[in-house]
C-alpha cells in the first residue's frame, strides 16, 4: 500500500524556470527510492505531483484535495503558498518541506514573537533561509568592500518583485546591512517575469549602488543583468539561492559574470564527491542516457526529497506508523543530518523542535562566464569552461536567537 505524499510543483508559473529542475529532482528521487529500495519500509512512495503554476490559491485548493486523500507529508514550493498553508498543515499535522526558505518558517515553536510569524512546527526546508543567505552575502560584501579599498560607505539596495518570496529577507537584509555600515538605498522593484528593466537599471546606476540583492528567480534576474550590462551599471550583484544557476548563466551570457550567490549543496554537478554516484543514479531515472546536465536546483531537489524519505523511514522504523507526527519527529532524530549515501553532496542539516533553521553554514559561489553562450548546451558550455561556478567562501552564521523566524 503506497504512502501518499503531496508534491506541489511550479512548471508553468512565475518561478517555473527553477521550479522545473527542482521538482524533477524530487520526482526522480521518489522514483529511485521506490526502485532501488522498494520504497519506505516496503511501501512505495506515491508522490502526487501537481503543477500549481505558482499560485497560492491553487496550492490551497490542491491542499484541500490532498487532505481528503490523507497525505502524510508534502513537498511544497513557494513562499506565498507555504506561508498560507502553515495553519492548515499545523492543524492537520502534515510535515511540509517547501522550496521556500523563508525565515518565517523556521520558528517552529512560535517563540520569536515577531509580528506576522506564527508557529510552524511542521514546516521544514533544506538549506539556509533566504535571510541567512543574504546575511552571509552581506558579510562577504563588507569584507569585499574593505579588500577593494574603495572609499566611503558601500551602498546596498534590495531588488525584487513585490511578492512574499523576494520580500521575505528584505527587512533582515537591510537591518544587517545597516549594522555592517552599508548605506541602504530605497528598494527597486521588478516583476517576477522577464522583461525590459532598463528603467530600473538607470535608477540603480543613478543611485550609485555598489551591492544589489536580486531577490527574484533566475528568469527575471537575467533581464535585469542584461539591461544593467547595456546601461553600463557597475554594481556587484548578490543573487538569491534561486536567483542564479547554470541555465541562467547561459541565458544571460556575460551579463551574469561575477554574480555571487549561495549554493545549498556541498558540490555541484560534475564535481567529485562521495554522494555523486547516487545522484547520477537518480538522474538516470528521467535521463536514461545519462547525458543531461543537472543544475544546482536539481541537486537541491534530491536533498530535500531525501530528507523527507529518511524522516519517513525513521517514522516507520520498528514497525511504526508513517503518520505526520512521527515523520516530524523523524526530522529531529539526527544531528548533522546528511542523507545516507549523499555525503559530500547534501550539506548537513540540524533541526530542533524549537528551531527549524536547518543550515547556518552558507557556501557562496561566483558565476564565471567567459564568452558567448548562445551556441551549445549548458553541458557543453560547462565542459569547455565557458561557464563556471567558482566557490568564493563559506560563511558560518551564529545561531542568534533574535534571528529566529526573521
Amino acid at each position, binding site marked *: 500500500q503506497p504512502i501518499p505524499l503531496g508534491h506541489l510543483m511550479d512548471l508553468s508559473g512565475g518561478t517555473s524556470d527553477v521550479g*522545473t529542475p527542482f521538482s524533477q529532482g524530487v520526482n526522480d528521487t521518489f522514483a529511485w527510492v521506490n526502485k532501488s529500495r522498494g520504497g519506505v519500509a516496503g511501501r512505495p512512495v506515491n508522490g502526487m505531483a501537481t503543477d500549481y503554476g505558482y499560485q497560492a490559491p491553487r496550492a490551497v485548493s490542491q491542499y484541500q484535495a490532498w487532505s481528503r486523500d490523507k497525505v502524510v507529508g508534502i513537498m511544497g514550493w513557494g513562499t506565498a503558498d507555504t506561508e498560507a498553508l502553515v495553519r492548515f498543515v499545523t492543524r492537520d499535522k502534515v510535515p511540509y518541506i517547501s522550496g521556500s526558505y523563508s525565515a518565517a518558517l523556521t520558528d517552529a515553536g512560535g517563540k520569536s514573537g515577531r509580528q506576522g510569524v506564527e508557529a510552524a512546527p511542521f514546516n521544514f526546508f533544506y538549506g539556509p533561509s533566504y535571510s541567512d543567505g543574504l546575511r552571509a552575502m552581506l558579510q562577504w560584501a563588507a569584507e569585499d568592500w574593505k579588500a577593494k579599498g574603495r572609499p566611503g560607505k558601500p551602498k546596498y539596495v534590495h531588488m525584487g518583485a513585490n511578492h512574499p518570496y523576494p520580500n521575505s529577507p528584505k527587512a533582515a537584509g537591510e537591518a544587517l546591512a545597516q549594522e555592517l555600515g552599508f548605506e541602504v538605498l530605497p528598494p527597486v522593484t521588478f516583476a517576477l517575469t522577464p522583461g525590459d528593466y*532598463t528603467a530600473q537599471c*538607470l535608477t540603480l546606476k*543613478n543611485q550609485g549602488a555598489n551591492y544589489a540583492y536580486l531577490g527574484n528567480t533566475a528568469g527575471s534576474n537575467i533581464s535585469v543583468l542584461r539591461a544593467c550590462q547595456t546601461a553600463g551599471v557597475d554594481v556587484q550583484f548578490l543573487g538569491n539561492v534561486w536567483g542564479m544557476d547554470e541555465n541562467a548563466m547561459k541565458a544571460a551570457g556575460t551579463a551574469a559574470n561575477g554574480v555571487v550567490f549561495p549554493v545549498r549543496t556541498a558540490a555541484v554537478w560534475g564535481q567529485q564527491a562521495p554522494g555523486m554516484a547516487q545522484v547520477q543514479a537518480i538522474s538516470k531515472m528521467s535521463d536514461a542516457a545519462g547525458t543531461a546536465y543537472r543544475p544546482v536546483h536539481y541537486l537541491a531537489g534530491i536533498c530535500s526529497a531525501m530528507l523527507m524519505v529518511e524522516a519517513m523511514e525513521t517514522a516507520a522504523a520498528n514497525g511504526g506508523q508513517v503518520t505526520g507526527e512521527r515523520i516530524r519527529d523523524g526530522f529531529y532524530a539526527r544531528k548533522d543530518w546528511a542523507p545516507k549515501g549523499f555525503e559530500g553532496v547534501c550539506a548537513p542539516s540540524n533541526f530542533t523542535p524549537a528551531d527549524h533553521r536547518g543550515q547556518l553554514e552558507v557556501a557562496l559561489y561566483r558565476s564565471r562566464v567567459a564568452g558567448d553562450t*548562445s551556441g551549445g548546451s549548458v553541458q557543453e558550455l560547462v565542459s569547455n569552461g565557458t561557464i563556471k561556478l567558482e566557490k568564493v567562501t563559506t560563511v558560518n552564521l551564529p545561531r542568534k536567537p533574535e534571528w529566529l523566524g526573521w
Partner: protein
Amino acid sequence: MDGSLLLQLTLNGLIVGALYGVVAMSFVLIYKASQVVNFAQGEFLLVGAWVCWWLLTEWQLPFWAGFLVTLAFMTLFGVILQVVVLRPLIGEPVISVIMATIGLGIFFQALMKWIFGVFAKPFPPIFPVERVNLLGLEIQSVYLLSLGISVLIMLGFAWFFTASKHGLAMRATAFDQQVAQSLGVSVPKVFAMSWAISAVVSAVAGVVVGVVNGVSSSLSFYGIKVFPAVILGGLDSVVGAVLGGLIVGVLENWAQYLDANWLNWGNMVGVAPFYALILILLIKPYGLFGTKNIERV
C-alpha cells in the same frame, strides 16, 4: 530632482515607446479593417520572436535569412488564422470576434510555453556594434534600427489608408461588411490581408525585443501595453497609435522615476499607463486622435 536621470529615462522611454508604437499600429490596422480589438497582438510578437529564434539557433541561419523566413512565416500565419478562425466568424457580432482573439491569445501563449519552455532564451549576437552612446545613454543598436523601421512602417500605413483603394476597402469593411461586399470587396480577403500585415509588423517588433531582452512568454505583454497606447491615440488613428506608444513609453519611465525617488510603491511602471488610460477616457472618450462615431437618427 535629477536632470540627467530624467533625461535618460525619457530617452529610454521614447525608444521603447517607438516599439509600442509599431505594435499599436498593427493593432490599429486590424481595428480599422474589422472593428476588432485584437487581444492576440502580443502573441504575434511572441510567435514571431520564437520562430526567428528557432531558425537562428536550431537551424543556424544567418540573421537576415532567418528574419526574412520569419516574416514569410508570419504572413502565412496571419492568413491561416484568418481562414481557420476568423473567416467562419464573418457576419457574427464584433464581440464574438474579439472573444475569438482572446481565445487565440491564451491558446498561443500556452502553446509557445509548451513548445519552447518557460525559460527566457537569448538570441545569438547579431550586430558587431551592440551599443551606441546617445546623450550619455547606452542604447542597443537594434533599438535604433527599429526606430527607423517604425518610421517607415508608419509612413506606409498612412499612405495605405488615405490613398490606396485597398485601404478604402478596408475602412468600408470596418464600417459595414455587407455594404463592402455589395461593392465587390471580398471581405475575407480584406481580413486576411489585415491580419497578415498585422502579424508581420508585430513579428518585427517581437524580434527586435527578443534580440535585446531575450525571448520569453512575457513578450506577449506588449500586447497589453498596446491598449493604453491606442487609447491615448484613439483606436482608429495610425498617427495616434505611434504617438500613444511614445507617450506610454515615456510615461512608464517617468513613473519609475517617481516611484524610485518618492513613492516607493514598487509597481508604478506597470500600472501607470493604465491610470493614464482611465484619465484620458474620462476627459476624451475617443482618445486624443480618435474619430467620433456618426450618430444620426
